[in-house]
């Protein structure tokens, strides 16, 4: 079981409490698709992804960004059982969507950078450590059902 300090719990809830999920979801997914263009392989049916502006304006990217953030919200609300919370999602990503788990890490890094941009100086090293620990647990839980 993951051990969370009080600081980590407070920090994670505080960060997500302040995020606009629509804004950050789109920004993080857009950044991932631009910075790591091979991730576009999973979004063949999304239509226009040919440059950063097209990706940013694409309503399917925005919708999916929101789905991802709401998925993370489930983990925030179940910090003591992220593994169990994500069992089905892990099976989905492995067996149906067939996403290379390394991509979870790439999206996590992009989300960290977007949150850093939103929070500025408030995104201290300790806050970053707590946030990245949370994302690492999320990524690990999503990887669990890959066989």
């Amino acid at each position, binding site marked *: 079981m993951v051990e969370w300090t009080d600081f980590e719990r407070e920090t994670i809830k505080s960060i997500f409490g302040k995020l606009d999920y629509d804004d950050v979801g789109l920004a993080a997914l*857009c*950044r991932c698709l*631009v*910075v790591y263009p091979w991730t576009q392989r999973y979004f063949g049916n999304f239509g226009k992804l040919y440059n*950063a502006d097209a*990706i*940013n304006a694409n309503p399917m990217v925005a919708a999916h960004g929101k789905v991802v953030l709401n998925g993370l919200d489930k983990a925030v609300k179940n910090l003591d059982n992220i593994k169990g919370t994500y069992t089905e999602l892990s099976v989905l990503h492995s067996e149906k969507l067939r996403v290379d788990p390394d991509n979870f890490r790439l999206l996590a*890094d992009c989300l*960290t*950078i*977007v949150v*850093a*941009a*939103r*929070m*500025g*100086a408030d*995104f201290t*090293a*300790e806050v*970053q*450590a707590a946030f*990245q620990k949370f994302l690492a647990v999320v990524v690990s839980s999503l990887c669990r059902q890959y066989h």
Partner: protein
Amino acid sequence: MSLSANDKANVTAIWKKILPKSDDIGDQALSRMLTVYPQTKTYFAHFADLSPGSPQVRKHGDVIMNKIDDCVNHMDDLFPYLSGLSDLHATKLRIDPANFKILAHNLLVVVAAYLPNDFTPEVHLSVDKFLQQIALALAEKYR
């Protein structure tokens, strides 16, 4: 994943804004790396004080960042330019090259926090590629 003309232009442009804050950014990036990825502290056992903002950490952040700043002027000859440093890292420091990616990530986080409006996805892509090229050049002599 070599640098296109567009990448070089993006890096040059954003570095004009990074340079005035270069020392702070370098210090922050190194401090963050040591806090968020504690395994990196293993390379600094010879530092008396590894807490964020400590004089040794600040100084070392400056050293690294100054060199990265210089690399902006050497994007066309990065590998020859960094040849000596590559020897140093390969034979004396022997830092696992995976750590170059870790430091790069923390540098990107700090730049995003300092320059949120300038650090667009396209600029992020170019800077990420630039840092990756530096990492490759540094690892060139490893084996």
